[in-house]
């Protein structure tokens, strides 16, 4: 399929391109249609019959030579949702457990961030201007840097205004729009700004409260009653974006008891990116309070019945994840060092 003009073309990395190639080939096209029926979304978690499972496994084997099998998606690509749907069509029938989502659909984070901001130049701009004053609040200082970057200040307003609209006069906010714009902020604004806004090192509760409020918790996840974590996971799995972010988080923030940095992937940057990727989904994590750096999901394991363990497992992905804890701590130390370097 891929040998043309005598040379072996590079496999198209992104699934949309891979799908186009597959659909042009009758055999691959038929196999791909078969896999679409296997995708769990369609069967609504109904346990597949034995021959259906065999058919699905054979369909995947037939895809061995197709670019679909190894295609991936990019966090900042256009039509990300379409790409992720293709990915999970190909990978859905082989999700081991209801909970462990196999590998992340996202391209390796290392070569993801195209731009690098000269943060120190910005820092000099802020501390040079009389405006910033001698604020000791690192989270406030991070907003000063953000306000110097057009995309940061624009997209920060974009999510904050839609996450607070309706709520101020006692009504309810539009959580779907709020989530969408939060995701846009964390996808489109350079990480130099988003990391410093979200992982600013606080010494007091006022700063801690500003950090906790950064993603507008009253709209992005909080509700009058805490849902059961199983319900949160169920909503997430049904949405391609959330499912993808969760797979990315599970892969990149996977704790490893023996590893010195607590992570199996040893890539704090990838873990931070994966954590920020969860913000603006059904499983939006946040700081539990204004005086600790502990993060958690907004859910409880009360009333879990026989699924108490699964529920605890979901909660502990965030609340007692050594890899995530170390990753956040190291980012905060980095921010602290940068701040001290500027003063």
């Amino acid at each position, binding site marked *: 399929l891929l040998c043309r003009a005598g040379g072996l073309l590079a496999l198209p990395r992104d699934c949309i391109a891979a799908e186009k190639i597959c659909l042009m080939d009758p055999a691959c096209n038929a196999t791909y249609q078969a896999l679409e029926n296997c995708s769990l979304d369609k069967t609504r978690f109904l346990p597949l019959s034995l021959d259906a499972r065999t058919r699905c496994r054979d369909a995947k084997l037939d895809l061995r030579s197709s670019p679909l099998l190894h295609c991936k998606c990019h966090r900042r690509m256009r039509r990300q949702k379409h790409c992720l749907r293709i990915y999970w069509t190909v990978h859905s029938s082989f999700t081991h457990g209801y909970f462990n989502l196999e590998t992340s659909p996202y391209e390796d984070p290392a070569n993801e961030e195209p731009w690098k901001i000269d943060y120190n130049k910005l820092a000099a701009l802020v501390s040079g201007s009389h405006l910033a004053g001698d604020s000791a609040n690192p989270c406030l200082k991070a907003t000063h840097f953000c306000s110097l970057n057009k995309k940061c200040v624009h997209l*920060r307003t974009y999510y904050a205004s839609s996450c607070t609209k309706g709520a101020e006069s006692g009504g309810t906010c539009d959580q779907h729009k709020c989530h969408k714009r939060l995701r846009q902020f964390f996808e489109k604004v350079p990480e130099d700004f988003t990391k410093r806004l979200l992982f600013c090192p606080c010494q007091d509760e006022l700063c801690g409260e500003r950090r906790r*409020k950064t993603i507008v918790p009253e709209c992005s996840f909080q509700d009058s009653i805490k849902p059961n974590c199983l319900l949160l996971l169920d909503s997430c799995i049904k949405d391609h974006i959330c499912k993808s972010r969760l797979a990315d988080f599970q892969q990149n923030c996977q704790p490893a008891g023996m590893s010195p940095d607590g992570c199996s992937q040893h890539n704090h940057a990838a873990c931070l990116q994966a954590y920020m990727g969860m913000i603006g989904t059904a499983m939006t994590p946040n700081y539990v309070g204004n005086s600790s750096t502990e993060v958690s999901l907004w859910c409880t394991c009360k009333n879990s019945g026989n699924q108490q363990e699964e529920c605890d497992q979901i909660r502990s992905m965030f609340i007692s994840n050594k890899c995530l804890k170390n990753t956040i701590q190291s980012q905060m130390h980095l921010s602290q060092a940068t701040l001290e370097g500027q003063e």
Partner: protein
Amino acid sequence: ARRRDSPNCTVRRLMVKVRDLGLGFDSDEIVPFKYCSGSCHRIRSNYDLTLATLLQEKAIKPGPLGHVASHPCCRPTRYEAVSFMNVHNTWQTVEKLSAAECKCIG
């Protein structure tokens, strides 16, 4: 010396403390304030020329500042909101605070 023409109507950008906006918000954040400034002389009409003459000849009294304009105005044609957290860590949004685009209009 040659009198250089005034700069045309364009967007200008200024970093401002939220407190200095004068709207009563109590926040330590800084926000970009973009405003429109510049000349609109290039697109004046016969009306403008005549009005300028009559004003100069005191045939027409201008009244309070800005009530009679003898040229199109350099004004925003698109605005932007700005959001920030105040000192109580409450989010606030000011709609149509900043100019996103400026043109000579009217």
